[in-house]
Structures are given as structure tokens and as C-alpha cells.
């Protein structure tokens, strides 16, 4: 199957940076376009049985997905940067003194 064990840096098979940027821009525009198409479709295709009031409005689930992702990412990263995140050797370095974890 498709891989080999040689390191690959500095070899000729990698496309130039400009080409990658162009590809990335095309992909991004494609993404925006398809998201737009989905929202337009939502004007015509609506839930057969909305379970609560708001989900009958077109675009509700689009907003839900976007806000859900942003709030989750911001909230989780915020927690990691304030009280959850520790150095990788956090548990090892405390092992000399059993009560070190309290501090």
C-alpha cells in the first residue's frame, strides 16, 4: 500500500507553495458555495415534524452548527488555558511527595 519509509523533506514531488495556496482558495470558495446551497435548500425543505418552536425556521440548524462549534471550541480551549491544562509531566513530577498534588 501507498507509503514508504524514507524521509521526504526537500524532495521534488511536493508541489510549489503557490499552487497549494491556489488549491486552498478554490476549496474554500467551494465550501462557502456549498454551504450557501444548503441554506437555500432549507427554504424549501423543512422538517416534517418540528420538535420545538425554533427548528421550523430555515437556517436554524446552520446557526446551531456554527454557534455550537464556536462556543464549544472557545469554551473548551478557555478551560484548558485556565485550569484544566497542565504540563505533560504533571503527574510524574508530583510523585516524589505524595501531598504535592494539593498545591
Amino acid at each position, binding site marked *: 500500500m501507498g507509503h514508504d519509509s524514507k524521509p521526504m523533506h526537500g524532495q521534488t514531488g511536493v508541489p510549489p507553495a503557490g499552487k497549494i495556496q491556489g488549491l486552498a482558495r478554490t476549496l474554500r470558495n467551494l465550501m462557502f458555495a456549498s454551504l450557501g446551497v444548503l441554506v437555500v435548500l*432549507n427554504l424549501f425543505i423543512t422538517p416534517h415534524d418540528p420538535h420545538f418552536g425554533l427548528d421550523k425556521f430555515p437556517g436554524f440548524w446552520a446557526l446551531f452548527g456554527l454557534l455550537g462549534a464556536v462556543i464549544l471550541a472557545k469554551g473548551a480551549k478557555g478551560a484548558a488555558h485556565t485550569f484544566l491544562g497542565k504540563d505533560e509531566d504533571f503527574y510524574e513530577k508530583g510523585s516524589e511527595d505524595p501531598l504535592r498534588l494539593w498545591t
Partner: protein
Amino acid sequence: MDVNAFFHPSIFFVACALIVWMLPGRIARWLPPVAAALAIACVLTMPHGTYMQLTYLGLGLSLGRVDALSMVFAHVFAIQALIGFIFALHVQDRWQHMAACMYIAGAFGCTFAGDYVTLFIFWELMSVSSTFLIWLRRVPASTRAGMRYFLFHVLGGLFLLGGLLLRYQATGTFAFEAADPGAARLWDILIMLGFCVNAAVIPLHAWLPDAYPEATVTGAVFMSAFTTKTAVYVLLRGFAGFEVLAVMGTLMTLYGVTYATIENNARRILAYHIVSQVGYMVAGVGIGTAMTINGACAHAYAHILYKGLLFMGAGALLHAAGTAKLSELGGLFRRLPWVFVWYMVAAVSISGFPLFSGFVSKTMTITGAAEAHHTWLALGMEVAAVGTFLSVGIKLPYFAWFGRPDPGMVLKPIPPNMYAAMAIAGFLCFFIGVQPGFLYRLLPFPVEYVPYTAWHVLQTLLLLGFTGLGFYLLRLKLVPEAKINLDFDYFYRLAGRGVLALARRPVELLDNWWNEFYARAGLRGMITLAAGSAWFDRAAIDGVVDGTAVNVRRAGKTATLAQTGQLQNYLAAAVIIGLIVFAVVWFWG
């Protein structure tokens, strides 16, 4: 009832483990896939009924309860066993194959158990043998993680044991039947707590993301399938309709994805996604309608296949690159494209994309929750679906295969059997996604739910598409960091250290005091006594029974060698002795 129609699949795996024990690793590794294939044939031909009822120590045990519910799980367990053993075919270490065989034997035993004693025995067999799947990675981190894993599962086992004994005392039966949600007694709660430990219900879940990333590459694939899903099965069997499970399950879905969003180790991200995905099943059990119970079963089936595939993908990365940390990986697309393809099949399956397995099972649970008027729970599960796609569908693959230029690390070649196993699992994820009837026919209740309506497909695409937009906007914020995150294992590590501190301070003090006393008061008398008895020994005893002393010393030396002082050896010996006793009673009792 035709007893011959049922053959317990655990027998294949126990027999396989015993044969593997006696063979060198390079031959032994071919046997477990054969046992798994036999198990598949056995499960497919199994008629419903109750089999293998026996009396053991005066208790009526039932080892073979086959009905619609146990069949769903037995079906996927057998398939995943085969996939897992194909993935592990290159492993020369026969101990790993033995541990995996015993572990799967335990899972089948739990699935067909008709009473709590049988369940408990196989439950403990699973927890012991899965501990070995962690230890056999043979690095210090996995030794420590395995010990914490084992101790926590002992705790869960004690909840279960306490509950089933209290229940027997009060009701006089060990029969494993559904508890009444309206009249739960103390023993029901204890048994449910025992099950919840294995189902990784928060806050009892921390063993899972603690231990799974430290297991062997192939061991994690097995563990991701059996422990939590066996627990989901027994919860379905015993505790359907317990409202508390509905709430805890939904919290699990959210808790898991939140941690997965900030984790750095790929296998730990996937471990948190087990907590999250099992949350959907636990919520389905708790809501307890026919639709959500179907949803929980269907999701367990789909989940075992795609989660196994995700762990195979991350395991292949770890095998090739020597690390599963996203902060050290990146740009591997050009060198490991097939691992990427199969990983992505699993990633879109877990995210619930149309055409893949998660879509036909996850939406069933969520719709079931909404139709049972648990609107907030349904919404919570939708947020978790967003988080699932965000972390496992976009973040992990983006930073492992793209993200930044290839750091140029040397990659170990990936054996072809790993690719074969990934291809089989990937095919099944797709097959169930396009042919949901295959899965729905297995479910315990008739299925009215139709996944492929224009609205369901559009809703899913809107939800996931705009999650993708969210990632695009925040991609610089979500760069993985070389950090770990505190979880509830902090508290049980603290408890462990507390015991250590206790041993160090008061016990050490007492020990010192006793030594002092002994040295001052006891020693002089002892020396005098010893001198007298040594003279008597030399002059009288050894003169009469010549050579005894030498023989005793030799026997003592042998016993010393057997006692290695390593817990894993004692544990393995205990399991083997237990199995021999069981076999003797089984055949001649």
C-alpha cells in the same frame, strides 16, 4: 429445547487461548482469527432460547440466554473479534493474543449470561484480561496506567458483587432480569453503579481516557469495542427506563467532546469520544422507549465498527511514527494516504454523515429522545454531534495528515494485515450506512424510523457543514498543544497517594518504634534462646533426620522463585487456577 443447537462462542476463545499458550508466537498468531470465524458461524446459526443451565455449588446458573437483545451484541462482537485479530495478525507476542482471547471470551460470557453469578465471573475475566492488554505494551507509563485501570475496575466489580449479594439475600434469586425504575432498591443502585463504571458514565469514566491511550496498538482496538459495549448491553437488560441514565448519558456526550476538543494525544481524543458515543447509548437506555432502545442497540453496533476503525487508524499512526501526539505529527497525507482514507471513513461514520453507519443509528436515538419529549436531551445530543465532527472529523485528521509541512520523521512500514482489517471495517461502516435494513432487522423492536428522508439528510448536512465553517474560522485557535488536561483521575490518583502517605508517616512511625523496642528488650533474650536451640539442633535433630534441613532450604528456594512479587503474574495465575477449577467442576461436578 435442543441443547446441541447452541454452542457457546466463549469456548472457542478459551480453547484458542490455551492452544496459543503452548505454541510459539509466529504460529500462534494465526489461530485467533480462526476462533473468531468459528464464533461468527456459531452466532449466525444460533436459535433463540435458554441453554447451558447447570447447578454449581447449589446455585442454578444459566450461561446461554439467547434472545433478540443478546443477539445484536453477539453478532457485532463476533465480527469485531475477527477484524481485531486480523489487525493483530503481525503481532508475535503470544501473551497479547492470549489476553485478547480471554477478554473476548469474557465479553461473550457476559452477553449470554442469564444470572448475576455467571455475569460477575465473566465480568471479572474481562477486567483482568483487559488489564493485560495494557500492561503488555511493556513501558513504564502503561504499567502505571494498567494498575490504576485494574484498581478502578476492582471497585466497579465490588459494587456489582455487593449489589448482587444483597439482592440474593432479599429476593433469593440471582436471575438477571430488568429492575423496576419506579421501585429501585439499594442493591439495584449498587449493581447499576457497577455497570456504570464499565460504561464510563461520568464521573466514573476517568479510567478510560487514562488507560486506553497506554494500551498496546492492537489491544486498544479490542478494548474500544468490548468493555463499554458489554456494559451498555447489561444496562439495556437491567436498567432500561431509569431517568438518571438519560440525563447522565446526555452529559457524557457533551463531556466527552469537550475534552476531545482540547486533547493532544490522538488515541486519548478517541478515548474521550468513546465516553461521548457511549453517552448516546446510555441516554437511549435511560429514556427507555422502544425507539431509543433500538437506537442504543443500533448505535452500539455501528459504534463498535467505526470506533475500532478509528483506533486502527490512530494505532497505525502510532505504529508507523512512534507517537500519537498531534503536536508531533503533521503533513503525513502524502506518505500514509490509505491510513487517512480508512480513518476518514470512520470519522464521517462517527460524525453521522449520510451514507455512513453513524447516520442511521445516531439520528434514531436523537429523534427517539425528541419524540419522547426530552427536547433538552435531544438538543444536548445535537451539540455533541457538532463537537464530534469538530474534534474527530476535522481537527484530528487536519493536524495529523495536513496542518503543517511533513516534519520528515522516519516511518516504520505498516504491515498489510493492518490495511486489510481497516478495509473490512471501512466497508462495513459504509455498507450499514447504505443498507440500514441489515442492521435494523437485528434490533429487538420493529423499526418504524426512516433515516433517509430529504429533511434528515439536509439537517445533518447543515449541522455538520456549518460545524466545518466554525472550524475554518477558529483553525488557528484549535492548534493542538503539548499539554495534558486534568480529569477525574486526578482524584483517584490523589487517593492512591493518600494511602502512600499514610504508609509512609504513621505506619513508618509505628514500625520504627517497634524495631526500637525489639532491639532493646527482645534481642538479648532471643540470642540466648537461639544459642541453646542451635546447639540442640546440631547435636540432636540433624543427627536423627539427616539432610532434612538441606531439603527444606531447597524447597524454600523454589517457592521463592515462583513468587516474583509482580502483581501481573499472581493475577494471571489466579485466573488460570480459577479456570481449571471451573473446568473440573464443569466436567465431573
